[in-house]
C-alpha cells in the first residue's frame, strides 16, 4: 500500500466499498471506476479495502447443528395477535372511554341539581359576565336561587311518630 493520503472527493471515497461489493448501479459504477482509474489515493484506498476483505476470517460454523435448534414456526395465538394490533387497541380504547362516560353520566343523572348548577356555572364562565345585561344576570341569579330550593328527586324519609303504640301499650 503506497499513497495513503485521502482523496478530496468524499462522495467517491464513500462509494469504494460499494464498488468492491458490486452494490452500485451500472452508471454509478462506471463513474466510480473512472474516478479510481485517475486517482492514486482512491486506488490505494481500494487496495486497502481489498486487503481488509481478504483478511476477514470466518471460522467454520456448524449450520446443521444450528438448524436443528430451530423450532418449527408457531403461529401466535389470536389474543397475542390482538394485543399487537393497533386498530384493535384503538377500538378497545374507544369502548373503554364510551363505557366510562356512560357510567359517569348515569351517576350524574342521580344528582340533577348538581348537574344543572355545574352546567349553569360553565355557561357563565364560557360566555363571560360582561356580555350579559344586568336584568338577565339578575334573572339568572334568581334561577340559581330557586335551584337550591328544588327538592331532591329522591323522596325524603318520612318519620312517623309512634303515637298509637305508646297509647296502645298504656291500655294493657
Amino acid at each position, binding site marked *: 500500500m503506497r499513497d495513503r493520503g485521502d482523496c478530496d472527493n468524499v462522495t467517491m471515497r464513500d462509494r469504494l466499498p460499494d464498488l468492491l461489493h458490486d452494490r452500485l448501479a451500472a452508471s454509478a459504477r462506471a463513474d466510480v471506476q473512472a474516478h479510481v482509474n485517475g486517482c492514486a489515493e482512491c486506488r490505494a484506498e481500494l487496495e486497502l479495502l481489498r486487503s*481488509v476483505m481478504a483478511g476477514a476470517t470466518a471460522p467454520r*460454523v456448524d449450520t446443521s447443528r444450528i438448524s436443528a435448534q430451530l423450532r418449527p414456526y408457531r403461529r401466535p395465538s389470536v389474543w397475542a395477535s390482538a394485543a399487537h394490533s393497533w386498530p384493535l387497541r384503538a377500538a378497545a380504547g374507544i369502548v373503554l372511554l364510551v363505557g366510562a362516560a356512560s357510567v359517569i353520566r348515569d351517576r350524574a343523572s342521580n344528582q340533577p341539581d348538581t348537574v344543572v348548577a355545574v352546567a349553569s356555572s360553565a355557561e357563565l364562565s364560557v360566555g363571560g359576565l360582561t356580555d350579559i345585561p344586568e336584568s338577565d344576570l339578575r334573572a339568572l341569579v334568581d334561577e340559581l336561587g330557586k335551584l337550591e330550593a328544588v327538592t331532591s328527586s329522591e323522596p325524603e324519609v318520612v318519620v312517623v311518630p309512634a303515637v298509637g303504640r305508646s297509647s296502645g301499650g298504656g291500655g294493657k
Partner: protein
Amino acid sequence: MTDPGRTGGDPRDSELIAAWKAGNQRAATELVERHASALARFAVSSGVRDDVDELVQDTFVRAFASLDGFRGESGFRTWLFSIERRLLLDRRRAERRRPAAVELTDDAAATEYSALDRVVAGETRSQVWDAIGRLTPTQREVFVLRVTEGLSYKEIADAVGTTEGAARVHYHNAMRTVKEWLDA
C-alpha cells in the same frame, strides 16, 4: 447490484421466511446456511475469540423465535447483525462483571485485540487487521460492516443502532486511524 439476501436465482430471504412460516423447515436451514458465515465473520471482527459458534447459534435461535417482530424495514441480514450485536453486548457486560474479565472499553480495544493475537497462536495477522484492532468497538463494527459485509450506512445505522450520519463519521474516522497506523 448484489443482494446479500439472494444469490443467483435463489429465493429471497422474505420468500424463505414465508416458506418457513408455512411449515417448510428446510427454508430455515437455507437461511442459516446463507447468513451464518457473515455472522461468524462479524463476531470475529468485533473481537470475539471464544464460542463464535454459540453466538451465531444464539443469534439464529433468537431471530427465529421473534421472526413475527421482523417487519422487513431493513434486510434480514442487517436484522441478524443487530441481534448478534445485542447478544455480544450482553456477553461483554457479563464478562465485565467477572473479576478476571478484561473490560472492553474504547481505551481497552487494542489490549483486547492483542490478547486475541496471543490466543490464536501461530496465526499471522495482517498489518491491516492489526490496525483494525486499534479501533474503538463502535468504529470497528461500522468499519467491518461497511468493508467486509458491504452494508450501506443506512443498514449499518439499523444494525448498530445509530444514525446514518454517525455511521459515516465512524467509518471515515476508522479509515483515517487505520491509515495512520499503517503509515506509522
